[in-house]
């Protein structure tokens, strides 16, 4: 079963990377992939390849973040978007533009922005957990929505201020709904490093994550303080989400869709959830990104597409899953 799915998902990943290299705002014919020439070689080397790799890594990271959060918080509807992490990150990333007012050179923003995004991603996640912890499964979702509301309105206020004070900063409307259009090689490095750490740690810690999901008492008896353990992961998830938001904006729901599918097919142990979410996250986001970046003749934010896929899943989980106490 697992071998078949590994093979199947690897094939899917291969073809989705191929498709993502071909389709985009500019169509690159398959022949140009094998023998890049002229304008195509520039597009592929400078833009298409690093961006596709980034999208693949982002898909993997968001899916794994979702899977781990769902286990540790015992809630199948958690992902960095629902938990408010991404909204906090977006607020932080936008806030960093105001450093321009203190004469910070525009080029440095690339380095500062992820850090501030991380700080606010962490803050927003902690608020969500504080609000939702004692109120059960729905509490976290409601807490996350409230936190997301707060930071979205803060973001709206900021964007208005930014567009009047710094007219040279490009519009952020699209960015707020996720836009994986151009990501450079330099950003790829950080992204790959974070994705690798996240996936490796997730695989290595899978059995411990399972234990913390099952029972706090059993964790304590095993010598794991479940609360400290959860916070450790919340920091890592916020770091990853903050970095992703600062690069491509808010990409939502990948963390709900992917682990949900994996859970249906291969069961809900972290030992299956992390590796297979990692493997399925990439093609899912790559395909969503192809749809979003011009195949309909115009660019659509990618969260507009992922949320359409996620909505039925959320409804399903709410109506069936939790009511059945299957999670």
């Amino acid at each position: 079963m697992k071998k078949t799915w590994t093979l199947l998902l690897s094939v899917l990943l291969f073809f989705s990377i191929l498709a993502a290299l071909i389709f985009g705002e500019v169509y690159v014919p398959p022949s140009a992939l094998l023998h890049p020439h002229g304008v195509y070689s520039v597009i592929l080397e400078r833009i298409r390849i690093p961006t596709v790799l980034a999208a693949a890594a982002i898909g993997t990271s968001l899916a794994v973040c979702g899977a781990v959060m769902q286990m540790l918080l015992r809630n199948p509807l958690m992902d960095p978007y629902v938990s408010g992490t991404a909204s906090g990150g977006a607020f932080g990333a936008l806030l960093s533009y105001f450093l321009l007012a203190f004469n910070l050179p525009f080029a440095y923003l690339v380095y500062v922005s992820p850090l501030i995004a991380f700080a606010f991603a962490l803050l927003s996640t902690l608020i969500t957990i504080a609000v939702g912890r004692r109120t059960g499964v729905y509490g976290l979702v409601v807490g996350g929505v409230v936190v997301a509301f707060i930071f979205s309105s803060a973001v709206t206020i900021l964007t208005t201020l930014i567009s009047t004070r710094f007219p040279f900063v490009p519009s952020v409307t699209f960015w707020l709904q996720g836009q994986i259009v151009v990501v450079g090689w330099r950003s790829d490095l950080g992204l790959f490093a974070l994705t690798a750490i996240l996936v490796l740690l997730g695989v290595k810690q899978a059995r411990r994550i399972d234990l913390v999901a099952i029972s706090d008492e059993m964790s304590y008896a095993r010598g794991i303080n479940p609360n400290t353990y959860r916070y450790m992961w919340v920091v890592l998830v916020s770091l990853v989400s903050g970095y992703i938001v600062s690069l491509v904006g808010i990409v939502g729901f990948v963390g709900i869709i992917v682990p949900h599918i994996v859970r249906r097919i291969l069961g809900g142990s972290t030992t299956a959830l992390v590796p297979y979410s990692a493997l399925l996250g990439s093609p899912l986001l790559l395909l969503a990104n192809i749809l979003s970046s011009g195949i309909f003749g115009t660019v659509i934010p990618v969260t507009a597409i992922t949320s359409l896929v996620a909505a039925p899943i959320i409804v399903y989980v709410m109506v069936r899953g939790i009511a059945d106490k299957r999670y």
Partner: protein
Amino acid sequence: MLISAISVKLGDRLVLREVNVEFVRGLNVILGPNGSGKTTLLRCIIEMLKPQTGKIEVEAGEKSYAPAEYFGAEMSVLDVLLSGDSRREYTPYLELFSLQSFLERNFSSLSTGEKRMVLIAKALAEGDVVLMDEPTSGLDLKNQVKLREVLGTIKHKVIVVSTHDVSFAQAADRVALLKCGRVIAQGEAERVLTEDLLTQLYEVRVRRVHVDGKTLFLT
């Protein structure tokens, strides 16, 4: 295991007051009504709660815990057993409770009693000091008897069970009666499970009768 003068305050409520209790190898039962502090005492032993005063000396070795409440995660029984990466031999304990055929089944789809048996088998396999919170709740009569028999035969581990079930306490090597956060009596089952002490413990008249060589407790 020696617990000396521990007091625990949760919020404004003093849940355990100067509790002194000793647990031996074999089966120990903490008997008490709802809200008497049984779970709190177990949680102190795994260091989930820190007593304000007093200390707990525990035998060397791994601790394990079968909780009263847990999350019915959607994973196979095998994954539940392997969670926490303790890497023990589970088969003998699964066989004791006839759970060998359960490994591939989805933990979340098991009945309450079956889930509990799985967590009990896991705890018994993993721990040298095994703590169980209300292990008989949700079990049918057959499994209650089975559990009592099995726990009564394991003499090389320190097993501490909290329960309000008097008949379960009869199988114990040592019983501690807990009421309102105080230990009102402790010692061998035969000596502690008297009509007077149980009546005092539960605040209902308890009678001890002998039928067919067995001791029964009636209210």
